[in-house]
């Protein structure tokens, strides 16, 4: 049973991943990403990580991809990208070589261990023990051993929120900073009007 689940989910994952990379339209890429995320969630379930699978679906598929789509629609950049050429000479060939190497080298390393990579056990708690659900196990670890790291991630999130607000905020001087931005006749934004008025008055004084 697990074999079947694995191969189906793996096929979905790989197809989605290739779809992300190869789609010309960003909207298609985003939708392909949902497929990959879903496949990974399935693989989590297959490995008894039920809580993470739920989180994966809710946060990634539910929140992050929606955020991507929202930004794409907001900015109206869902135009097809020309993938036939790369303006950077040699970039694509080098990228493919690097990608192959990044795939091949860990697999080769895995092969040298006889397909049985091992590592040191932290002894934080069992995964297979059905008496302790994985939610409880993760919660226990997060709030004991990793409590400090957890608190720091809260700070990280707060900083990210503030940073995102600062970055996305529309600066009243934004129009002045772009020298080659053509004045948009259709704009009804008061800010833009004021900015263009500023620009003309500056030209007048110059």
């Amino acid at each position: 049973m697990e074999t079947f689940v694995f191969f189906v989910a793996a096929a979905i994952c790989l197809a989605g991943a290739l779809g992300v990379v190869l789609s010309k339209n960003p909207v298609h890429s985003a939708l392909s990403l949902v497929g990959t995320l879903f496949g990974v969630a399935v693989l989590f379930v297959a490995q008894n990580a039920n809580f993470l699978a739920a989180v994966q679906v809710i946060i990634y598929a539910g929140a992050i991809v929606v955020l991507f789509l929202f930004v794409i629609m907001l900015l109206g950049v869902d135009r097809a990208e020309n993938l036939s050429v790369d303006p950077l000479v040699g970039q694509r060939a080098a990228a493919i070589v690097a990608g192959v190497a990044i795939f091949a080298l860990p697999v080769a390393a895995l092969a040298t261990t006889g397909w049985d990579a091992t590592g040191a056990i932290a002894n934080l708690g069992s995964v297979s023990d059905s008496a302790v659900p994985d939610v409880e196990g993760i919660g226990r670890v997060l709030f004991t051993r990793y409590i400090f790291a957890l608190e720091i991630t809260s700070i990280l999130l707060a900083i990210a929120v503030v940073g995102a607000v600062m970055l996305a905020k529309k600066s009243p001087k934004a129009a002045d900073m772009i020298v080659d931005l053509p004045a948009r006749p259709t704009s009804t934004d008061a800010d833009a009007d004021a900015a263009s008025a500023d620009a003309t008055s500056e030209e007048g004084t110059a």
Partner: protein
Amino acid sequence: MELLDLVWLIPALPLAGFLLLVLGGRLLGEPGAGWLATAMMAGSFGATVAVFVGLLDRPEEERVFGQTLFEWMPIGGWDIDFGFYVDPLSVAMCLFITGVGTLIHLYSVGYMHGDADFSKFFLYLNLFAFSMLMLVLGDNLLLTFLGWEGVGACSYFLISFWFTDPEKASAGKKAFVTNRIGDWGFMVAIFACLAALGSISYDEILSGAGSLSGTTATLIAACLFVGAIGKSAQFPLYVWLPDAMAGPTPVSALIHAATMVTSGVYLLTRVNPIIAEADTWIQPTIAWVGAGTALFAATIAVSQKDIKKVLAYSTVSQLGYMFLAVGVGAYVPAVFHMITHAFFKALLFLGSGSVIHGMHEEQDMTRMGGLRKYMPITAATFIVGWLAIAGVPPFSGFFSKDEILLYAWAENPALWAVGLVTALLTAFYMSRQVFLVFFGEERFTVDADHDDHAEVAAVDEGDADTALDTEGSEAEALEHPDTADAPQHDDVHVLHAEPHESPWTMTLPLVALAGLAMVGGAIQLPFTSDLHFLEDWLHPVLGDNEAHIDVATGTKVGLAVVAALIALTGIAIAWAIYVRKLRRPVEPAILEEGWRYDRAITSFMGGPGRAGFEAASTFDRTVVDGAVNGVGALVRRSGGGLRGLQSGFVRNYALGIAGGAVLLLAYFLAQVTL
């Protein structure tokens, strides 16, 4: 509290005066700034007297001690402290530095009257006094060097005090640059001391000198001698001192006669154990440089027309005597002459300043004459100074010069002969100066119309006219008409006011110094050793390094009589030429130009010297700068090449990261498999 603990006050008071004047000099203005500076010097003198008394209370062997204020430079294993080295020598120096210094400060209050930079002058004077006292009191070579450079800087500031005059500004530069050569020697000596002895404190140098190898001691002594030559204006580095007379006269008196220029002699006396360890050629070299300089400068002084230049060359000559004394191991006579010289040469300079002041900034002696009736106090005191420097008994100069000549006789009669000729010339040129300035007829005229003093306005116009007539004829008779000076005869010197005596602030120091110049010889009377007060006093410093001479009393008396006769002969010759006019004066132009030494330096530096500098400069530009610029260009070029990596394309950077990750993976894989 013991009196000796007051030693820190000696330099601290002038320093405090300096700082106060820096902060509030302009507020104090004239004459407050001058009085403050004078009070600080007087306080310093008081502290010195206290330390002197405290030292007298101690038994002889305990009269050398140090007072460490704080650790100055801890460098690895070397500790250089900031402290004072108090011994009979440094206290003797301090006594006359602060004593003469106080009198000169007082004098300056009158002399600098009306100067726009009145407070700045006293600021420099106090800074100078502080530096000089640090030089003398410092307990290690570096601290002495600090004072050494400090007095050099102050000398520079004060020579070019009236810096708007380009000639005075360049005189200051000349002094500074020439002194650098000597400072180089001093620095090398410090380094050599540190390398050889691991310390530069006098305590350890003087006690460790015996362990030095002869070569090292010779190197240190020679380098210190180079430093002393520069600071004490000996041949060949004397050239700056005559030009230094461009500064205000009190500066000439304090720095360029009484104190700073003697610091070379002080330094050599201080390190006498090292000189004792050095090779035997060092001391004769010092002696001959001193004797040569003494004679050389005396010949130049014979033909000078500027009242201060005569004294300047005379100072060079007298310093030569001191070096001669050091060279023959006669440290006590050297210090003795240093002290008496400080008295009488400061007196002479201040007197000349008073004359210049009274003559309204006239310095040319050929335009003076008969001044004794206008400024009696100046004349009387100047005459005392003249008799002292000429070596007429019982004035102080006679005793000190006689001591030096005595030791020179014992060492090498040739040195004695040079010294004696110099003494003859000294008596001659000083007499010439006195006769030209204070005696004879007036070679100037007073134009009362331009004067605003009521009493001088009464001078009869007719008298002035006759004075002008006589001036013309007398000057013809006096000066040889075939020299380049001829045009001066047409230009009759007209004073806008009668020469006048100086205020009490200037005459009081003159009188005090005259008294000292008269009786200063009493600190070291000849013949019986009971009267050798200075020698006994300095004994803990010098020990056995002082030369001991074995000369019969009869010879001593004979030498003294010869010296006195020589002095009187010089005076008589000058009297015959300049008062009785029995002969026309012989004042060759070559002597007036100082044997054309300055001009030779100028033409050498302008010719081959300049070519050498140009070559060095070319070398510097092409090779040294080339190497530096080459490194810079290399870095810039390789940086320019590397800059291409920063394309600005984010994906390029990402490719770099991916390549790095691949390389790392390959490395780990190789670690596992191979």
